Structures are given as structure tokens and as C-alpha cells.
């Protein structure tokens, strides 16, 4: 009793340890036995249930939008990190949590470089007015470009540019990264859709299999129904002719539809054949006995069989207990006999 209590307390301690930021407590059992994992799990789930006593609070709808945006920006950041040119070692491994940053944090936006601002001013007169020039480093440089007259219309710069200007390449990289991000988002979206489709297909396949099984069962039932409702049908009741342990409570019935040579046998209560023996079904015809094959009786289920090979002139049915092996005629004890039929 005390050992049981101790075991429960050990389990409780381990579960309680999940609340410890340093991880679960590993209790030391005097017997050196680990705590019962089922009990640990139950106590862990109990802890998970505790907040359900609180009145739930629906988060603002914007919260999900912000979360989604953060995920997408993380994905984009992840892509940029993977690109070799933009790779920077921030000491973050994939298994480590990403550094937390507030959603919509403007500090993440990098200021344009001095060179980029100059480039903007050159191509778009007046744009520089919108930029706070005090934010740009190197104040001495700021005075270098001469102020452009307001009336000067836009025109391409007269400067001869190298084939691949480094200043443009940064904008190009941004554009490329943006396009890549959009492509990845698109791919992610389609991948998600694909997963959904796969799950739907798997579910439909399961449904289809279940329906097929039901369909087969219905077909079987319909066959039986056809048999018992067919024209020119006879029913033979099969009964034991002697009291033995094998067939004390055995009985059977045979539906026969002579017009189509169909027969259906149903047996119940027959004990499984002893070792080295086998039950056989026989058709009693005007010409003699014809074998209907072995009858495999199971202990836990009735036996059913049917076929379209009813011999011509069948007048009755027998089930005999024979030694295992092939037999052309019944030699063993008759377990069940059905000689009298009722026409329906």
C-alpha cells in the first residue's frame, strides 16, 4: 500500500517537474524503479486541464493577422538567410528558437546607404527632399552633390556607367529577394493545398474501401435473399440421427433452387472435427452419393456454403465425419441428415 502511494507520488513529482523551466524532476526511487509512465502521463494531462477552469478569452482578430504576417516574414527571412550572398551568422541554428522581435518593428528596416540616397537624388529630383538627410552618415559627403534646379525635368544621367553598377545591384538584389519571397510564399501555399488534397484523397480512398466492403456484404445478402425467394425452391432441414458429443445441438438447413442448380447450406451447433477427422457434405441422388466437399466447422461461427453445382436428382443431404483425406463415398458416421424437403 505504502509502495503504491510512493509510486503515485513519484509519478506526480515527475509530472509536476514539467512546470519547472529546468525540465522534469528525476525522482530517486529507493527501489530504483522508474515511475509508472501511465500515472505520469495522467498527472501531466491533469496539469494541462487546469486552465480550462478559466473563462476563455477570444483574441482580437488582428492578432491572427499579425501572427500570420510574422510567420511569413520569418519564412522570407529564412530564405534570405539561406541565400549565400546574404548569409550572416547570427548564431541561430534551426533547432534554436528564433530571436523574438516585435511584429511590425520598424527598427528592422535598414536605412539606405549614402550611396543609395545619392543615386535616388540623381534619378528622381525632389525625392531626396523626402529623406531626412541628417540620418545619413558622413555629413561632409552630404554637401558634395550640387542642388538640382527645381525646373530641371527628369533625364537619364549623363554619367557613363559600368556594365554592372554595384549601386544598382543592391536594388536588384532586393527586387530579386522580394520576387523569390513571393515565389516561395506561392509555393508554400500550393504545397499546403497539395497536402490538403492528399489528405482528402486518402480519406476518400478509405471511404471508398468501406463502401466497397459494404457493397460486397449487400451483394452477399442479396444472393441469399434471391435464393430463399427464388421460384421452385425447396428447404431441407438437417438433423442429427444419433446423439453424439459432436452434434448434440447441431442443426442445419439447405435451400435448394433446382431450376438454377443452386444450393445454400447453413449449419450451426456442430463441434469442430477432432484431430485427424474432417466433416464432408454429401448429395444423396438417385444414382448414389456425390461429394459436396469438406466442411470446415469453426467453434465460434456458423458454417455457410453455397454453389451452383447441385447434382441432378438430388434427394437429400448428409454431413458425415470422415478420416482426413479424399473419399468417394461416405464411410464415417452420419452427423446430420436432411432427406425431407418442404417446397415453398
Amino acid at each position, binding site marked *: 500500500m505504502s509502495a503504491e502511494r510512493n509510486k503515485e507520488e513519484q509519478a506526480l513529482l515527475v509530472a*509536476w517537474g514539467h512546470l519547472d*523551466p529546468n525540465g522534469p524532476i528525476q525522482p530517486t526511487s529507493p527501489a530504483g524503479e522508474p515511475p509508472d509512465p501511465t500515472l505520469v502521463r495522467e498527472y501531466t494531462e491533469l496539469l494541462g486541464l487546469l*486552465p480550462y477552469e478559466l473563462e476563455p478569452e477570444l483574441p482580437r482578430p488582428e492578432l491572427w493577422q499579425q501572427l500570420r504576417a510574422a510567420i511569413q516574414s520569418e519564412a522570407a527571412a529564412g530564405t534570405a538567410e539561406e541565400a549565400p550572398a546574404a548569409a550572416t551568422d547570427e548564431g541561430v541554428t534551426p533547432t534554436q528558437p528564433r530571436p523574438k522581435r516585435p511584429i511590425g518593428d520598424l527598427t528592422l528596416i535598414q536605412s539606405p546607404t549614402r550611396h543609395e540616397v545619392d543615386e535616388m537624388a540623381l534619378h528622381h529630383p525632389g525625392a531626396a527632399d523626402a529623406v531626412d538627410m541628417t540620418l545619413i552618415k558622413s555629413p561632409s559627403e552630404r554637401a558634395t552633390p550640387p542642388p538640382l534646379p527645381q525646373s530641371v525635368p527628369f533625364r537619364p544621367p549623363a554619367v557613363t556607367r559600368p556594365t554592372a553598377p554595384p549601386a544598382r545591384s543592391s536594388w536588384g538584389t532586393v527586387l530579386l529577394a522580394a520576387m523569390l519571397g513571393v515565389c516561395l510564399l506561392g509555393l508554400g501555399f500550393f504545397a499546403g493545398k497539395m497536402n490538403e488534397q492528399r489528405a482528402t484523397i486518402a480519406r476518400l480512398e478509405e471511404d471508398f474501401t468501406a463502401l466497397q466492403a459494404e457493397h460486397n456484404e449487400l451483394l452477399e445478402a442479396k444472393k441469399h435473399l434471391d435464393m430463399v425467394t427464388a421460384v421452385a425452391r425447396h428447404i431441407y432441414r438437417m438433423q442429427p440421427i444419433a446423439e453424439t458429443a459432436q452434434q448434440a445441438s447441431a442443426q442445419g438447413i439447405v435451400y435448394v433452387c433446382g431450376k438454377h442448380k443452386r444450393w445454400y447450406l447453413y449449419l450451426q451447433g456442430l463441434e469442430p472435427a477432432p484431430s485427424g477427422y474432417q466433416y464432408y457434405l454429401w448429395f444423396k441422388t438417385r444414382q448414389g452419393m456425390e461429394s459436396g466437399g469438406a466442411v470446415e466447422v469453426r467453434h465460434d461461427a456458423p458454417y455457410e456454403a453455397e454453389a451452383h453445382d447441385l447434382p441432378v436428382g438430388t434427394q437429400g443431404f448428409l454431413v458425415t465425419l470422415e478420416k482426413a483425406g479424399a473419399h468417394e463415398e461416405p464411410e464415417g458416421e452420419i452427423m446430420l441428415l436432411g432427406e425431407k424437403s418442404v417446397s415453398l
Partner: protein
Amino acid sequence: MQPRDNDTPVPTPDDDAALVERIVGQDQDALSELYERYSDVLLALARRILVDHSDAEEVLQEVFLQVWDQAKRYDRSRSSVSTWLVLITRSRAIDRLRSRQVVDRTLAAVQQENQDLHTSPEGARAVLFEQRRQRLRREMEELPAEQRQVLEHAFYGGMAQSEIARVTGIPLGTVKTRTMLAMKKLRKALRAEIRELL
């Protein structure tokens, strides 16, 4: 997030685990579904610990970002998804509670807690969750006050047992006994609810 209809099938632990598997594959719809299922309970938990609503919302976001990033760390053999989420939320909320700025804000928020409690009756979405809530409340209310106090200090206050002993002036051994008694009693009373999560 829309309130859940009563006709909506109640999520099972298997459904939740399947969602987490999809999240491992970076399926945003799966995250959205998980968020819809549990954000209200988790927000309530964060709010219970932090009091300040904006802090609680930030914690909720952090939790789901963590789920997004580390879904593959979920171990089905150790807990159900809902318990996993509860434990992450509690841990993050308590971390935040321990940071000084938040403590200040929490103290301020506590002063107007009674007038400013934001509850959402429409948040009671699934019948099962509502029943679970009522059952939890009833069982928690039936606990002796001193046992409930110890449990709340530990779970919502993030206090170790020695801290509880210090704060309440109760001997450490008594704190341990009360914790054990409360947990055993709850486990016995909530056996059916626990089984649903296994």
C-alpha cells in the same frame, strides 16, 4: 476567429496531433486551425498569469510562433497537444511575469482588474469545452481553500514549493502534502476528462 458551432465535431487528441504534423510541414492552415481551437483557452491562461491584456496577447503570439518553429519537438507519447500548448503558454507567461517591466505593468493592471476583466461569453464554442470548464470549476471549488491556494501559487504564479512556503508562511512539508493531496483528488475526480486526452 468565429465562435464554433455546437454541430462542429469536437477535436480529438488524434485530430490535434495530425494538425501538429501538418504544421511540421509548414502548413499555415493547420496552424490557423490549432489557433482557432485553443487560442481562447491559452489567452485566458496567459491573462490569468500576467493580468495585462497586451502582455497576454504577446505571449499568445510567441506561443504560436514557437509552435510554428518547433512543432517537430512535440512528443505525442508525453502529452496531448492541448497539454503541450498549455505548458508552453504557462512557461512563457511566467518568464514574462518575472521580467521587471512586466511586473510593474502587472501591478498597475491588477488595480483595475475587477472593472476591466475582458471575458467573451461567445468564446464558449464547443459543448465539450464548456462542460470541461464547468467540471474543472466545480472540482477546483470543491478543493479545500488551502490546497487550492497552493496549487494556484504553483501553477499560475510559477512558484517553487519553497517559494510558496516562504510567501505563505506554511512549512515546506505542509506545502508538499497539500500539493499532493490536491493533485490526487483532482486526478480522481477528473479521470474521465484525463482519459479523453490520452
